[in-house]
């Protein structure tokens, strides 16, 4: 029943997109009917330039997310496990985190131009804070009794990080990864759109300036589908990594 209603909703949405411009409620040069967008989408899919742009966007996204995730986890565990470091860095993290990464756009333009590097700086900066803050929350959640027990059994620092700290922090890390994956896509496309670094965003900018409105919409649809795929993928990774965890086991039992 539920999937059927969802399909009906999607169908209705597409139908609305078809009917509104056809009925003249909105000029069709602003919003082309859904059929025209679909044709433009087919044209894009047949174009080698589109696939190159998609590859550029994805490689920027993967690379940026990877760097941010590794840096966030390593620094988060380090800072979280050492109380003095946590106290010392708290104010700096609080200060740097709300700085919008788009503020860096003019800077990376003059430093790196329209290149992969400029995109990476934006993506890494935005995704890193999502990861770091989640890891810090995760480390703080460690059960003191479990930690003391591990210590009493003579586990060293490395073993305690592996067997106590990491499993506690993992759900938080996964949430961080999910948030970071979405933010990384936004900043990746924004960088391409604003700087002109090669990718889907740059292709959107070209479609806009050349007045190819159906293509503009088709490309936006692609970015949306990409976003959905990333969300679904991140959820799958999360469920897989946490299959031992209460929250996921509980879900499966219901």
């Amino acid at each position, binding site marked *: 029943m539920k999937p059927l209603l969802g399909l009906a909703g999607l169908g209705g949405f597409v139908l609305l997109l078809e009917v509104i411009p056809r009925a003249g409620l909105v000029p069709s040069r602003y919003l082309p009917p859904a059929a025209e967008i679909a044709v433009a989408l087919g044209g894009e899919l047949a174009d080698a330039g589109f696939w190159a742009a998609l590859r550029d966007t994805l490689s920027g996204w993967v690379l940026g997310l990877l760097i941010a995730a590794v840096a966030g986890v390593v620094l988060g565990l380090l800072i979280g496990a050492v109380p003095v470091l946590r106290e010392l860095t*708290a104010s700096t993290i609080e200060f740097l*985190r*709300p700085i919008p990464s788009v503020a860096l756009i003019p800077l990376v333009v003059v430093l790196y131009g329209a290149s992969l590097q400029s995109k990476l700086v934006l993506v890494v900066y935005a995704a890193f804070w999502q990861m770091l803050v989640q890891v810090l929350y995760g480390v703080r959640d460690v059960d003191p009794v479990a930690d003391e027990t591990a210590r009493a059994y003579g586990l060293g620092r490395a073993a305690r990080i592996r067997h106590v700290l990491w499993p506690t922090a993992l759900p938080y890390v996964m949430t961080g990864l999910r948030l970071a994956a979405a933010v990384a896509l936004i900043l990746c496309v924004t960088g391409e*759109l*604003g700087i002109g670094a090669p990718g889907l965003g740059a292709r959107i900018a070209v479609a806009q300036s050349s007045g190819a409105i159906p293509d503009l919409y088709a490309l936006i649809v692609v970015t*949306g589908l990409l976003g959905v795929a990333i969300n679904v993928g991140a959820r799958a990774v999360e469920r897989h990594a946490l299959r031992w965890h209460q929250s996921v086991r509980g879900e499966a039992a219901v």
Partner: protein
Amino acid sequence: MRIVYWLGLPIVLVVAWWVATAGSTDFYVPPLQSIVAVFFDVWTLDRLRADVLPSLLRLLAGFALALLLGVGLGVLIGSRPRVRATVEPVLEFLRAVPPPVLVPVIMLFAGIGDGMKILVIVSGCVWPILLNTVEGVRAVDGVLTETARAYGLTGPARLWRLTLPAASPQIVAGARQALSLAIILMVISEMFAASSGLGYTIVEFQRSFAIPEMWTGIILLGLLGVVLSGLFRLAETAILGWYHGLRRAQKG
């Protein structure tokens, strides 16, 4: 001791920046000293009123509209399971579209005036608020709902006394995400097509190679982000004080 902890690292970082760039001959990375020197020349009161104030007003208008729209629609959708099942896939798709790519589309419809910039902010901010509200409303405690029904609590009273308070932690979490998106979108919309605003001014500095001035703009934008997130935290403490207190009490 606390003050040492709070100010220690920032001071070290600023000093490191100052020293590392002191003799900088790189045109694009000017000495911090010269950035600080031009800061107050660039951001005079007139300038703040002409460029920063309109940006902030657009940001607030967009954020407030997104909040109204998101919570309103979220309560509607969240409290009706069939409506939720119908619109959920569409909402998931719309949320997944990176908001900045809508800037070109919204420019088609709304030109390049204030309306377009506010619309861009709303179009991006509304999703985290809307989806979080839906989740929050859906998760309202069943016993509380039944109790409210038994006491004859209906209509606006029920919304005001049961649904919204119960969903408020989720709504606030969505609003926090939306706020950082709002700042991003404010800057993006001004970088694209504008004749005023903070984003516009920074890009203008960059294009005319006024590099120290550009740096001051970036720093100002950073400070703005910090101030806004601080204000948000104050508001959150005021709105969710009862909730955090409850959680502390439950944890014992």
